[in-house]
């Protein structure tokens, strides 16, 4: 599968994303600088990595969502090709409007880094199909602004349409309805605060995250 990782100034999980994709697909993704205006030809999957794009001195992801590469990302989304945004990447996707809702400051106001037990709410997405019957996974989280918010009607719709993909077993950040990860209505774009790319290696963070990338590989 031909993939790409978008790199903003301040992205810091770009290498982690690169290595996870390479480990699972066997192919290194293209690293696409934010000032590019096109994705490499034939890009099938795009990952928007975690970090602090532009330092997140403004609202997290707000500056990045106005980058030169974003129109190309939108076009990729319109084609129905898969996009995964993790942590800051999730924030960027909500800021671009590609995913509904917003990520607010954690309810406890501090940065939280811990291993978060999650439930897979929808195992039939192209991001979770490889998990089979497995419903419980542990991914690391590391964020200051992961408190997912959307209005009640949006939350009802997300839940009703199977767009809530991951929920926290012990809500760490105040997220509405314990939501940790969602897809868009078409199921082609997923955003999540926990880091599957930091859980693809038994020596570091466990291997629960492999399924996300294996699912994508299987669906490509």
């Amino acid at each position, binding site marked *: 599968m031909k993939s790409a990782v978008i790199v903003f*100034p*301040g992205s*810091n*999980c770009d*290498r*982690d994303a690169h*290595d*996870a994709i390479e480990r699972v697909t066997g192919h290194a993704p293209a690293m696409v600088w934010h000032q590019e205006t096109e994705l490499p030809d034939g890009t099938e999957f795009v990952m928007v990595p*975690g*970090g*602090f794009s*532009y*330092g*997140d*001195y403004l609202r997290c992801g707000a500056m990045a969502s106005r980058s030169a590469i974003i129109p190309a990302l939108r076009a990729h989304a319109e084609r129905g090709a898969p996009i995964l945004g993790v942590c800051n990447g999730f924030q960027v996707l909500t800021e671009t409007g590609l995913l509904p809702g917003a990520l607010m400051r954690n309810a406890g106001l*501090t*940065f*939280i*880094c*811990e*291993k978060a037990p999650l439930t897979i709410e929808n195992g039939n997405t192209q991001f979770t199909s490889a998990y089979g019957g497995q419903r419980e996974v542990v991914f*690391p989280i*590391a964020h*200051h602004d992961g408190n997912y918010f959307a209005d009640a009607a949006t939350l009802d719709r997300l839940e009703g349409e199977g767009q809530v993909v991951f929920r926290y077993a012990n809500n760490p950040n105040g997220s509405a309805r314990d939501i940790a990860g969602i897809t868009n209505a078409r199921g082609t774009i997923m955003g999540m605060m926990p*880091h599957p*790319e*930091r859980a693809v*290696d038994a*020596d*570091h*963070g466990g291997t629960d995250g492999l399924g996300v990338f294996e699912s994508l590989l299987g669906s490509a």
Partner: protein
Amino acid sequence: MTANASALSQDIIDDHLPPEEYARTVEILGRAPNLVELGIFSVMWSEHCSYKSSRVHLKKFPVTGDKVIQGPGENAGVIDIGDGQACIFKMESHNHPSYIEPYQGAATGVGGILRDVFTMGARPVALMNALRFGAPNHPKTRSLVSGVVAGIGGYGNCVGVPTVGGETNFHSGYDGNILVNAMAVGLADADNIFYARGAEPGQPIVYVGSKTGRDGIHGATMASAEFDDDSAENRPTVQVGDPFTEKKLIEACLELMATDAIAAIQDMGAAGLTSSSVEMGDKGGVGITMNLDAVPQRETGMTAYEMMLSESQERMLMILKPGKESVAEAIFRKWELDVAVIGETTDTGRMLLKHKGETVCDIPIKPLADEAPLYERPWVRAPKRETILAGDVAAPQDYAEAILTLMVSPDLSSKAWIWKQYDRHVMADTAASSEDPSDAAVVRVHKTRKALAITTDCTPRYCQAGPMEGGKQAVAEAWRNLTAAGADPIAITDCLNFGNPERPDIMGQFAECVEGMAEACRALDFPVVSGNVSLYNETNGKAIPPTPAVGAVGLIPDISKRGTFGNLAEGDVLMLVGESHGWLGASLYLREIEGREEGAPPPVDLKVEKRNGDFVRAQIREGRLSIVHDLSDGGLAAAAAEVAMASGTGLNLAHEGELPLHGFLFGEDQARYLIGATEAKAEAVRAAADEAGVPLTVIGLAGGDALTVNGEWTVSIEDLKRVNNAFLPALMGG
């Protein structure tokens, strides 16, 4: 000179240059220095930059060895970790600024130490921190903890380098002066390391990074003075950190370092543009001419004095090979960073500064850098304290209660409230961090099976009780922690935090700690490759406990063979490596249970330390141990409690013999480890111990869900966890 400048000159002379040092500047210049020159002399000769009180003692450290590529004197130390790879690391204090403005003080401490490491060509891969706060009930403690932790996290998390470990102590001795020591560790190719030396005449001097503002002016001199009640007025001397710019600076510098453009490079830390240019000029043996009009400035109307003394963060100064300016410009522009050619190197040996068409400084560099004052300050040895063994101390009424009291004490309690605020996993190579049952943090060398083991250690109450043994112990404990993680210890960095060196007793603490550390470094083949001295940690005449923090790095050849203490299983045989004499002097038990801070610290026998450690490391590599944990604060009881909490399996300890039970449980004799192995493997371990002449005692069996002692005293794992997790959440308000 204007009237204002003249008044400022007089202030500098009064506050920062003792009469003999002022006289020396006049002698060097052959005339009275102007304001800019006074500023430059005063920061270069400040304690912080010149080590004028400590240099004579620091010479005692062993600084060379098979694996040392670069010892002290550069931005950071460099060691060889094989396969053409090098590890670059250093620890540094940011104590004074962190007390005055905790968030920015701690944040810029992290930023500064990161720059020291990537300046040399390393990609930073791990951060550590050693923190000492005042008594929990001191009115400032809570806000200082909150600010320092947020500052460390705010900077490290954003810049994308994992904060993998550290230590935190609380003691009333730090009420007026907290300690914030940050350590950075990076990886580089051994054949692509960058130094401050290497400049030749006729090369362009290039400024990159953030613009220069008025922040931090005279920060280095502030760090060279005691505090008093008005110290909060120093807030304008604390710098402001911008981790986003630092992240861009790391990437841009590493990108430039992959080309052949740089002759010499130095980050702008303490004393900013002054020390960076003087050090490169001095080490390269070249003169420096700079046009200050070309310096990127954040504010209008900055004077030459302000620019030379500003400690604005996230700036680097480099000397490029001629013709490479455009290579650097393209890279720094891509990363949206300022880049400007501000001068060139010369063959005059002088630092010549021009501003608005006038020469504002003309100083010969050699005497400025090399002839900094050197003081052999008078010092006295610390009085010897008495030996206190278990027989001299009443046994507790209730051993279970005593164990719980220790585990809820600030020094032993869980620091999860702190480390949960640090991203410990970014870069995807962290095998063990603060949350994991490992005596050292373990960070894999990217894309290999090798790993670095990293620890920071110091037991200030030992250093207070006996600076020489305390200094030895700080080094020995670091060595022991790396060993217990399964690593070959390689080298250390240090951060020597003390009070006012002008007082003979404080200077004595310094001299003795250094002597003890040096002895341990030699005996354990554990050289010092970088370090930092922070003196004047004192408020209204009250000094901090002597705190020579040690940061140490070792190498685990194969990450699958490392030591941990979270895998104890039912039926495992528990063994104690090393001899126990029930040493309670200066112990945590004596302080927390008896309320006494008395007695001499436990003696450190370095030969025994090495023998026992080498034995334990070999057992780890043979795959014989299910758990291994070093014994330190709180002795066997604390180690056993930590193993029980981490494993979820109980330990049933049995003790008989002459040594009183509270000596067995709480004594802090050195060179000891608690290990566990299956019954089958325990046999092999015992045989190996016999062969190596290592004292090894079977002390019980694993099983159940409690820590029990002689079948008589029981503390459930649930209770241990409850009390151990109580302190910080309660202090910090949930």
